[in-house]
């Protein structure tokens, strides 16, 4: 693959205005699928959670999951949308084996929610209003695995294997209006927008929202238009590309930045942008051309004859509106106060997309400062090194358990880092790793005292100094004891005991 030439980001912004648009797919966490009573669960043994409806078998008929409709209305309301008095489903027709019916049931001209907006907080604390065009209900598709070919990708594959467990999983697709005015903040806005959507669906409790599992997926549209002199009318919108497969917050930001630089260079060189989907490659941080927009995009939507209109009552909408949790922006202000974080501490957590993790870790019993320290510190460091999202490495429950072990004195920080690695590497819960690796701090005073007495005997000069009241000299003994205990001791306790033993003699 040829490497695309990239224009310097600041230079690109001087010449062009980035224009954005996002489509975010949210998988709802209902118990059953959108149109069948198969369990809403995938990732296990292939083709086990399917019914005749999910396979599109002749004679099977879809029936709408009422809970999914309620979830969708709640999401629409949280996005500041109007809820359609009447909406209906439509068939989106295409031939691809990820759905066996040869169509996807979606919504087309009558989405359930439309015309909203979302307040998105930028890293510097400013708010940006992202306009929402619509949110509509649809079903997810099955999972294809391409076999053969060099890289397991579509190109060169000999055949494909299909697992329909995900087919029919309820989705809400959130479509923004065209977003102007993001300017140099476009990459950060993209990330903050997706993070906000994630916060909203998590606070509503309607999705697991794990990007690495595909519960939340973002397609990022971007085009550039040349800047015009003041007073002149703006240039027409440029040709856009749609980058798919962006499955982490960090990738959303990087993909937008990359596309701005790539498109700017092509335009500056006198070239034209091809309207196409592009694939994001996490490993190289680049995008590559996918399918050009063509006849294949003629989906021949028509109203789904097997399903009836969705006509939510005013009472239902009022009930769901009253039950909405506080908006994430307001919640953030409250949390910052409750946690007692400084502006900097709070922004670090937020910009790293770790609000949910810290919240859940605090809820699981850790102190806010300890939760912050572990998520923005060691866990983020490991995530960076492994090119992964922190949330994909370890659960808030495990982090809270780790903090509890530290607070109880069973672990010191150094041991805790080893335990954390064990948890991340799938060795079990923190306690299980402690047991399996034998990492607990030696809390048996007898063993410590023996080591201390040995160390004091080996360093009589130090002992003399301590006796003279020069307690800072104890450091050398503490160091020797910690070394003898292979670090598995609580340094504060060792210090106490050293002073005790030294003065006892």
């Amino acid at each position, binding site marked *: 693959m040829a490497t695309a030439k990239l224009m310097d980001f600041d230079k690109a912004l001087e010449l062009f205005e980035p224009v954005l648009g996002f489509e975010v797919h949210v998988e709802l966490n*209902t*118990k*059953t699928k959108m149109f069948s*009573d*198969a*369990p809403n669960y995938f990732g296990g*043994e*292939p*083709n*086990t*959670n*399917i*019914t*005749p409806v999910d*396979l599109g*078998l002749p004679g099977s008929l879809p*029936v*709408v*999951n*009422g*809970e*999914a*409709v309620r979830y969708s209305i709640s999401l629409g309301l949280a996005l500041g949308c109007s809820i359609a008095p009447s909406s*209906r489903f439509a068939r989106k*027709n*295409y*031939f*691809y*084996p*990820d759905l066996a019916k040869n169509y*996807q049931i979606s919504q087309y001209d009558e989405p359930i929610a439309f015309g909203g907006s979302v307040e998105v907080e930028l890293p510097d604390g400013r708010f940006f209003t992202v306009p929402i065009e619509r949110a509509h209900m649809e079903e997810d*598709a099955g999972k*294809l*695995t*391409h*076999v*053969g070919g060099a890289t397991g990708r*579509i190109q060169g*594959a*000999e*055949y*494909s*294997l*299909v*697992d*329909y467990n995900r087919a029919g999983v309820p989705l809400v697709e959130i479509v923004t209006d065209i977003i102007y005015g993001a300017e140099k903040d476009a990459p950060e806005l993209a990330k903050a927008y997706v993070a906000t959507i994630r916060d909203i669906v998590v606070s509503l409790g309607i999705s697991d929202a794990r990007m690495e599992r595909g519960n939340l997926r973002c397609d990022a549209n971007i085009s550039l238009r040349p800047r015009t002199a003041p007073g002149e009318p703006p240039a027409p919108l440029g040709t856009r590309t749609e980058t798919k497969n962006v499955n982490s917050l960090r990738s959303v930001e990087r993909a937008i930045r990359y596309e701005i630089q790539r498109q700017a260079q092509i335009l500056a060189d006198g070239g034209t942008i091809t309207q196409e*989907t592009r694939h994001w490659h996490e490993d190289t941080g680049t995008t590559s051309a*996918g*399918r050009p927009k063509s*006849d*294949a995009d*003629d989906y*021949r939507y028509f*109203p789904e*004859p097997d399903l*009836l*209109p*969705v*006509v*939510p009552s005013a009472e239902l909408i009022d009930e769901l509106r009253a039950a909405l949790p506080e908006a994430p922006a307001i919640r953030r202000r409250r949390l910052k106060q409750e946690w007692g974080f400084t502006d900097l501490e709070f922004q670090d957590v937020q910009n790293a997309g770790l609000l949910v993790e810290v919240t859940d870790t605090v809820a699981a019993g850790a102190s806010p400062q300890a939760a912050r320290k572990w998520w923005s510190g060691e866990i983020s460091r490991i995530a960076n090194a492994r090119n992964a999202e922190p949330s994909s490495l370890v659960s808030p429950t495990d982090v809270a358990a780790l903090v509890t072990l530290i607070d109880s004195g069973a672990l010191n920080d150094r041991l805790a880092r080893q335990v954390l690695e064990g948890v991340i590497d799938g060795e079990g819960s923190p306690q299980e790793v402690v047991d399996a690796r034998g990492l607990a701090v030696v809390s048996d005073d007898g063993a410590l005292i023996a080591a201390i007495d040995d160390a004091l005997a080996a360093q009589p000069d130090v002992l003399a100094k301590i006796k003279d009241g020069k307690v800072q000299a104890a450091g050398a003994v503490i160091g020797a004891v910690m070394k003898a205990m292979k670090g598995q001791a609580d340094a504060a306790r060792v210090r106490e005991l050293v002073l005790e033993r030294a003065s006892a003699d």
Partner: protein
Amino acid sequence: MSEITQEQVAHLANLARIALTPHEIESLTSELGSIVDNVAKVSEVATPDVPATSHPIPLQNVYRDDVPGATLTTEQALAGAPDHDGSRFRVTAILGEEQ
């Protein structure tokens, strides 16, 4: 007369993965045209106070409770498949992209 053209019929046939001969395209163009003309007659009698409808039956909000039911076994699911590999359906390599 309707505005159905041979190009439209060929395009639709392609989207629907139906191979048509030139003769079939010609006759279908004329038949589809007649159908569209006949359907258009409905517009002549529809007054502005008649809302468009996609369902003749006055039913709405027919929902299912969110309770899991029986699923197919993998064997049942794969029973009608032309080909499979282990517990997954096997299909020919697709030269397109995921939607």
